[in-house]
């Protein structure tokens, strides 16, 4: 199966039984999807450690092991030795297609270049991120580094691929050619395999194409595509993204252990995991006309996706994760920021050692309640930092001239402000082990609420068992199957969080509210600052909430203005968050622990502690 990733194959035969895997950095997850009556359902799942590494060094080993688990559980014979039986031979033998995503082996690591760092440099970065890559460096003519430092940097990095951009079509060519000369002088080597040429995509000023070809054509596997910034006011990322996907499959994956075999086994092009999750997030936002933020928190990286007013963005925080990168979360957030979420005291040395031990043994799981609470505290910080990173890149185009009217004189806004508006946010979708596998769903909900501090009314959901990557790649060959499974088996609505904007002293009134539940039951009460309340409201049910905030508190309609809204239920329910926005946590250690204990108890976050 070697068709280009940018143009998935048309599958003519009926697809009634599908097996899909995601080869993650730690585990390979397999799911079985079957057509039951007229709809597709996810029926069984299996997982096994990923085997990119020694002693196996063959990713297909882990795939076969994960599928073997499905075989055991389902009673369906899928494997014939090391081969997947396709298509189905009878009701209990074979599958119609096997598909996969992959982020094993460190994912797709790219270096991008541009002329102006916050213009073409950022556009190139967005193109690479949108294609599912980890961007290891952004080089630009104005990045402050001296020319020889740039060359040294290119030389010392070993990316899987380089994306070069720069200049608008018809503009000056000098800076782009200069960068090409630096790349040529550095003679960059790919991460895997010292004998093959590094793939390089040129997506800059079209007038410089011939010069770039002359400079880099011999030294790299050069591909030329449309300019990602043909004019200053427009970004054209799709051609570069498609090219990245194609080269990922043709070059990069061919070098990783066992991937040639994996590509042959699969009935559709292997997608980088984040690209597949991005496809799903974009589909949800479009279908439901929502502004959403999606997060996939893994062991090594945290991906954040957003769709605001139809604009899709993705970022990856390459070193924020819950196992391999857990120690980096501590390094970036600092110990006090993690400790503020832990509802007990623990000495610094013990905590630091525990975090490092998780880093060196990344597959272990919390065995006691306090260990679980520490991991949840760390995940709040990883989620928070990844969103800050996302906000800084999910921006409007920079350097664009804006028309100003007289009214703008008093409200000057620079170009390139973040697109993420928490007040306009409709839905947060969480995915990844710590969110999908939290023992109680309320734990996932509160981790996301604490990390993101949603404003006003926001729905929250999680990926039930982490299958968004599988459905992302599935949607490229059979959209109905992907949608059916997504709605019925993947997305679990947790409920709605209502968070008034404003701060006040603990115990002061924040808002009066009235909830009319389905069936007519009414609740009238006051939300005080420092309160966290949870009302059960079933999945697919709606309640009517009227809230009258006090005069300095805002629910989205203005300070002191009452709001009446229908709120969606979920497996957790309706959460009223009176803890203030920005969120207020007591600075005193004892008071903080007491507040956390009160909140956690109010929403029944953890089982009663035995100690």
């Amino acid at each position, binding site marked *: 199966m070697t068709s280009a990733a940018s143009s998935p194959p048309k599958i003519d035969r009926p697809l009634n039984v599908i097996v899909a895997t995601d080869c993650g950095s730690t585990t390979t997850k397999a799911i079985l999807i079957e057509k039951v009556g007229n709809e597709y359902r996810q029926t069984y799942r299996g997982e096994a450690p990923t085997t990119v590494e020694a002693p196996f060094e063959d990713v297909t080993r882990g795939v076969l092991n994960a599928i073997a688990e499905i075989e055991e559980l389902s009673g369906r014979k899928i494997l014939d030795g090391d081969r997947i039986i396709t298509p189905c031979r009878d009701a209990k033998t074979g599958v119609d297609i096997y598909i996969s995503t992959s982020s094993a082996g460190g994912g797709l690591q790219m270096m991008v270049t541009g002329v102006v760092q916050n213009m073409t440099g950022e556009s190139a970065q967005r193109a690479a991120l949108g294609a599912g890559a980890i961007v290891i460096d952004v080089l630009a003519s104005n990045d402050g580094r001296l020319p020889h430092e740039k060359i040294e940097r290119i030389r010392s990095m070993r990316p899987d691929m380089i994306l070069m951009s720069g200049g608008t079509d018809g503009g000056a060519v000098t800076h782009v050619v200069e960068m090409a000369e630096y790349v040529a002088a550095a003679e960059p080597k790919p991460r895997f395999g010292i004998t093959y040429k590094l793939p390089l995509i040129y997506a800059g000023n079209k007038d410089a194409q011939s010069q770039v070809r002359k400079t880099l054509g011999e030294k790299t596997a050069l591909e030329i595509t449309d300019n990602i910034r043909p004019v200053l006011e427009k970004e054209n990322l799709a051609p570069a993204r498609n090219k990245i996907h194609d080269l990922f499959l043709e070059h990069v994956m061919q070098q990783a252990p066992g991937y040639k075999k994996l590509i042959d086994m699969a009935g559709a092009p292997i997608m980088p995991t984040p690209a597949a999750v991005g496809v799903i997030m974009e589909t949800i936002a479009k279908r439901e006309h929502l502004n959403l933020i999606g997060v996939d928190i893994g062991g090594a990286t945290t991906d954040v996706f957003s769709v605001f007013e139809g604009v899709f963005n993705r970022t990856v925080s390459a070193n924020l994760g819950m196992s391999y990168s857990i120690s980096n979360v501590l390094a970036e957030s600092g110990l006090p920021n993690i400790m503020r979420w832990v509802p007990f005291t623990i000495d610094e040395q013990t905590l630091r*050692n525990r975090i490092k031990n998780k880093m060196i043994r990344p597959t272990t799981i919390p*065995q006691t309640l306090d260990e679980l609470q520490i991991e949840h505290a760390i995940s709040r910080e990883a989620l928070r930092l990844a969103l800050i990173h996302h906000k800084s890149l999910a921006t409007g185009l920079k350097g664009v001239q804006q028309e100003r009217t007289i009214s703008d004189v008093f409200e000057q806004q620079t170009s390139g402000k973040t697109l993420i508006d928490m007040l306009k946010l409709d839905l947060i979708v969480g995915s990844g082990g710590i969110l999908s596998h939290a023992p109680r769903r309320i734990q996932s909900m509160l981790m996301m609420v604490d990390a993101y501090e949603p404003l006003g009314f926001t729905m929250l959901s999680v990926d039930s068992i982490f299958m968004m990557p599988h459905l992302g790649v599935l949607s490229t060959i059979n959209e109905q199957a992907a949608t059916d499974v997504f709605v019925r088996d993947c997305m679990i609505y947790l409920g709605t969080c209502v968070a008034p904007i404003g701060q006040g002293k603990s115990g002061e009134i924040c808002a009066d509210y009235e909830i009319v539940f389905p069936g007519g039951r009414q609740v009238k009460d006051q939300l005080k600052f420092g309160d966290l309340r949870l009302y059960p409201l079933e999945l697919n049910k709606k309640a009517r909430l009227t809230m009258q905030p006090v005069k300095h508190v805002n629910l989205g309609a203005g300070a002191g203005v009452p709001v009446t809204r229908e709120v969606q239920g979920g497996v957790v329910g309706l959460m009223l968050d009176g803890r203030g926005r920005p969120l207020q946590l007591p600075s005193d250690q004892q008071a903080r622990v007491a507040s956390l204990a009160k909140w956690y108890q109010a929403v029944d976050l953890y089982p009663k502690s035995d100690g």
Partner: protein
Amino acid sequence: MAHSYTPGLTVTEQTVVRRRRVLPLPGKVLVNTGDRVQCDQAVARAELPGKVYPINLANQLSIAPDEIKEYLVKKEGDLVRKDEILAENKPLIKWFKTEIKSPVTGTIESLSMVTGQVLLREPPRMLDLLAYIDGAVVETIPQQGVVVEASCSLVQGIFGIGGEVWGEIVVAVKAPDEALTPAHLKPDMKGKIVIGGSFLPAETMAKAKELGVAGLVVGGIHDKDLRALLGYDLGVAITGTEQVGFTLILTEGFGTIPMAAKTFKLLSAHEGQKASISGATQIRAGVIRPEIIIPQAAAAAAEAVHAQREGIRIGDPVRIIRDPLFGKIGEVSALPSDLTKIPTESEVRVLEVTFADGARTVIPRTNIEVIEGA
């Protein structure tokens, strides 16, 4: 989940290791298949291209890029010395003369008529790739390197810092649960591999550096001491290039954890012998664990065996790798197949471990590692 288990660290008296020694860029292989090599012997050599220095002549002389050839004193391919004149203008009045001098000694690699740049390259630097272990060359990879094989005893650590070093093994403590204190380190340990017990405090690290100890192998350290040693908080476990004065290998983890008895016994049995060690650790994207390789003089013709384990079996020696029993060693005594609810309320696959004193406990399967090479 028969296939789901954490492969453990190897601690074995007799094995055959093969180490692939590959240059970072194509070069020349200096040895032949079948040759015996010493750890400090060069097996391949490459010329690392020199650093590149671009100079924008067009900007510096205020001329058009396509005019630079007219102003150059030297040609493409010429050698230049530091401060030698590369290019100059020819004004009518001498005072306005501008001379561009070479910032380095090297060659003029290329000129660009589009950007007006001249690229200067420093002379190449020789890079010798050493064998790392005493052994035999079993494969040569043209232009890239070799595979060296050695019959040896092997101990894998869990985490390390620092690169490849070699030296004589010295056991500095009496028991695996004894901490390695500064008093244990003596001047004659310079250039040697010192084996400690349960813990390595910061003061001992300082003394080891002062004495010039080549390597330290201990059960555990505190994270705060590692941070002090490195000067930064290690975020991701990709190590091997640190230069802290010695190579450090942890056999158990972070905290005070006695070295596994088997590991301590094996290393003690080889006191006085030469070992090659590497602190390189990479847990993500291709596991590399630190290692202690003790080549055996008599090159036993044992085959390199990769034990392809199919999973955990009853009787397997295991190490618990998560709190609250972190570091304890026992034996698998039961493998229930049903999911079991643990105190966090997660339902997971578990196993039962029996300790030497007969006590039993139930542990999630992901929280143990098999002690390999038993």
